[in-house]
């Protein structure tokens, strides 16, 4: 069942994928209670940051950031180099520990997000400059996205018990599906390390999507790709939200793409949130224009990954 979702995805395909996405969601009932946030009325935010602060030896990377991401929303975060965008993402994924402030993943409160439990909390991410496993073929890279679901340990895998074989088949099927979903079928068996940059970006997106994470953190997914690839990747991001029902936090430089793609945009400058709202509100906000176009600051180079 590898339906090719082309960029101009017709309504049928959209309907089919949503109906299947819903089915998948029931299957995930076993996931920790925190995920079941789809109550009626105003949806509980999937991600909430409360006055998060972070400094690298005196230099304040993030200064009191509050941010919420609603269910099924494409939430963009933009800002000039060195504004602290990547640091924010690293805090949400637990790689950095914030000096102050709290991160809420659905209803669970963390002062320091446990990175190893991140995937189990339904959060997946991509990295600014590619964190693929060069030595593994594409298919295996994507299967790695399923690793947190694997319960059959070393012994059962070695004895290839029924349960271990089922888990392997399940992971392989999910990977095959997301590979066709992102048109990666032709490079499925090639080593990730040797592929062109644009395709590697897509493989990393596939790896993040394979376990259908409720929350997807994308760190500049469109950086460094050609214009054509940019349109395609943008469509895939939108599909990810529509077909896989993921809420997306998108860090991106390309204002044009961001404006078209996101529901709400937060603008960071020098570690402070200077604007937050719909694309139209942000476009006309004077502070944003100053930050981007007018007043130049002697900012350091972008740090973080």
């Amino acid at each position, binding site marked *: 069942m590898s339906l090719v979702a082309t960029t101009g995805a017709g309504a049928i395909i959209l309907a089919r994928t949503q109906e299947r996405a819903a089915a998948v969601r029931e299957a995930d009932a076993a996931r920790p209670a925190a995920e079941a946030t789809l109550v009626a009325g105003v949806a509980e935010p999937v991600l909430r940051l409360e006055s998060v602060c972070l400094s690298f030896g005196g230099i304040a990377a993030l200064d009191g950031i509050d941010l919420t991401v609603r269910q099924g929303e494409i939430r963009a975060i933009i800002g000039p180099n060195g504004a602290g965008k990547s640091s924010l993402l690293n805090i949400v994924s637990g790689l950095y520990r914030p000096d102050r402030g709290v991160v809420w993943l659905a209803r669970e409160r963390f002062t320091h997000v446990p990175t190893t439990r991140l995937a189990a909390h339904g959060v997946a991410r991509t990295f600014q400059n590619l964190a693929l496993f060069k030595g593994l*073929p594409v298919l295996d890279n994507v299967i790695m996205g399923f690793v947190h679901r694997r319960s059959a340990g070393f012994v059962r895998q070695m004895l290839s018990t029924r349960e271990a074989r089922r888990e392997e088949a399940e*992971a392989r099927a999910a990977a095959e599906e997301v590979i066709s979903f992102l048109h990666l079928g032709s490079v499925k068996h090639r080593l990730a390390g040797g592929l062109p940059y644009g395709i590697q970006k897509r493989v990393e997106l596939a790896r993040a999507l394979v376990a259908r994470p409720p929350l997807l953190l994308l760190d500049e997914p469109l950086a460094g790709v050609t214009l054509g690839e940019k349109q395609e990747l943008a469509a895939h991001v939108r599909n990810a939200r529509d077909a896989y029902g993921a809420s997306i936090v998108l860090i991106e430089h390309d204002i044009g793409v961001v404006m078209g793609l996101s529901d709400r945009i937060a603008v960071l400058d020098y570690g402070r949130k200077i604007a937050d709202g719909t694309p139209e509100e942000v476009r006309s906000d004077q502070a944003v224009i100053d930050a981007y176009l007018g007043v130049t600051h002697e900012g350091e180079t972008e740090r973080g990954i």
Partner: protein
Amino acid sequence: MTRPVRSIATGWLSAPHFAPAVLLIVAYGVVPFAGSDYLLDAVLTPFLALGLAALGLNLLTGYAGQVSLGSAAFLAVGAYAAYNFNLRLHGVSFLMSLMAAGLVTAAVGIIFGLPSLRLRGFYLAVSTLAAQFFVQWALTKFGWFSNNNPSGVIDAPQLTVAGIIFTGAVGRYLFSLTVVVIATLFAIHLLRSQVGRNFIALRDHETAAKVLGVPLLRTKLLAFGVSSFFIGIAGVLWAFAYLRTVEPAGFNLDRSFEILFMIIIGGLASIRGAFLGAAFIVVFPLLLSRLGAALLGNVFDSGVLEMSQRIVIGALIIGLLIAEPRGLIALVDRLAERVLRRSPRPLPRSPQF
């Protein structure tokens, strides 16, 4: 290793079945009958034992990216554990002692793998030297390990499996060959499983693996454990199928370097690379010394020949690293590809392993 090695020949998909099948037929069908005692006892059996040790180390260093300079200590643990199991547990068969020795070595490997949770690169490599010196000291110090033999030397027990006694050069060779073939199949099976993927993920990008939920602690210790299991079994083959009496001094630091040489020269993260490296390190010096003796035997004494051979091997190792940093296996694959490209059957794009 801090930075991932650009490893092309690291595919773990099944190799084309043609080459290994031929190899097995020759190894079982032809060699035992055609091979001389010297070829079996002094060349092939040590090659099989060291090849298995190289395979074990390649799982740890090549696939999982954790460097270890303590392999010789794990060889020793395997040999002495098997000796004691065989000596003290009377009911148990030699095969059981072999497996038990592997498990004991795996446990010791995990203990000495603990520093890998915090250390990386050369700090980790040098910390595994602690294993090297400690095990060597413990085996000579506590007489119990060598059945209170005053000088710490142990003699080989009978190699018996299910009643069949493997004696003589051919018997020892077949026993080693069978153990190595089974171990290699197990390694292939391991590398195809999720655990195998976790090893490579751990090596290529530890942070991404952590974010995806790979259990880093368990994977690292598993890498040390599995690798030590293989090296322990190799230790038993080395001690009982090849040397037949063994002393702790034989498992010194030079042995650990020798095994590390094999996987670097042969090819990191490649099962064939491990065996190719073992062949190079075991066979080449013998060939060189026989060549030296034959050509210049009467001109120089064996000392001068030995020293010049040492220079040639050192220079060759450097030359090989320059010519092909990814090891002999990458060289061989390139040549094979060039040869096969001329033949009609195109080599499948999927990587060998």
